[in-house]
């Protein structure tokens, strides 16, 4: 933070995040949606559930980029960035699961029997497994970090694992689920990005929602990064 106002301390994108999220909540919950059988009003969850996964992927990607930057410069700042972006990514992944579970219980679950009865058949869904792998990889990343005491060594080894794991994550959550039968829509293409997939009106809310949630994730992370850096400074005094 050599210059006076780094990106973290600028305000415009925080205001943008708040405005976009207010828009997401009001427009997302109030405007007209296409009435589809089985989905009906639950389709509004698109603005929340899908955005969580987008946000998680973006945060994990930022984490990997910072790991690469660490290995290029050996500046511990980037290690702190990488760790905090990974933690926020995990939080958004868990939220994605939570919103997905609510959505699932209204659409996929068998209405004639108890929710627990259809649970085992629903959890074999390839996308659920893919997302579980993504979260487990980052849990393992945290375990690896905590098992090494030396600071520089921890930063270096966890950066290597982060890059290696991310490269393996691509096939596991972007390619493999598309090779298997899935209950999720859009298995034969790019779900959520395909313009034929989403209603034109919904897209005008969905894309701002993705940006809004991502900015919120970045905001939370920058606060955590600043806190960690302050703690490190206090320790070294």
């Amino acid at each position, binding site marked *: 933070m050599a210059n006076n106002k780094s990106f973290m301390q600028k305000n415009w994108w925080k205001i943008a995040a708040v405005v976009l999220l207010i828009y997401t909540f009001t427009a997302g919950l109030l405007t007209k949606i296409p009435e589809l059988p089985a989905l009906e009003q639950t389709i509004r969850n698109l603005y929340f559930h899908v955005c969580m996964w987008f946000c998680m992927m973006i945060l994990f990607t930022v984490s990997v980029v910072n790991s690469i930057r660490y290995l290029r410069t050996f500046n511990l700042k980037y290690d702190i960035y990488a760790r905090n972006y990974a933690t926020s990514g995990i939080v958004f992944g868990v939220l994605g699961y939570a919103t997905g579970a609510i959505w699932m219980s209204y659409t996929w679950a068998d209405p004639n029997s108890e929710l627990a009865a259809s649970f085992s058949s629903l959890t074999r869904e390839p996308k659920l497994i893919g997302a579980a*792998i993504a979260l487990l990889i980052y849990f*393992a990343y945290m375990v690896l970090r905590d098992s090494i005491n030396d600071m520089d060594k921890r930063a270096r080894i966890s950066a*290597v694992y982060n890059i290696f794991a991310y490269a393996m994550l691509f096939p*596991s959550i972007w390619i493999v689920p598309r090779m298997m039968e899935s209950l999720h829509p859009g298995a034969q293409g790019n779900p959520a990005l395909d313009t034929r997939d989403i209603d034109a009106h919904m897209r005008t809310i969905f894309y701002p929602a993705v940006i809004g949630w991502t900015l919120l994730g970045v905001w939370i992370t920058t606060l955590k990064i600043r806190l960690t850096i302050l703690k490190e400074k206090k320790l070294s005094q």
Partner: protein
Amino acid sequence: MAINEPEDKVWNGLFWVIQLFICINAVAKSFLQESKGRMLYFYTVASPADFVLSKLLFNSLLMLVMSLLSLLLFTLFLGNPIQKALPFIGLVLLGGWSLSLVFSFLAAIAAKAQQNAAIMAVLGFPLIIPQLLLLMKLSNAAFNPVLTMPVNILLLLGALDIMIIMLAVILFPFLWKD
């Protein structure tokens, strides 16, 4: 099940899970057993890329032998439900190779973290699940004379292996320095 022959699907699932554990135990030794003095010696005589490539090569060969051995034992003790022997053997070799590559690199990480094989399993299980899923899906075709193995999955597995080798060559120098 210890007495009766298992069904095709059980046989298949069991085989790949055993394969996974064989790999963890066989490959973990390669890095975790090296003493500090010997690593220092390697450091003076070889470049990191050469070192990691030779480790990968050795572990691949070791795992190929182990895979064939476990296949032999499985057919001896649990019966032979395989309809297409040659494609399945090829798949076993490909699978063993993939597993050994992933776990060799993870063993290098775990060795640097000065941990036992436990952390290797923690690091490795989530990474290997997609490959195991694909391998089981592919090997289902070997149990059924009607099904054919989808080529695109085979290519994907091959591409993954090549990517792991490249990543290992790029990233290992960072683990190597101490």
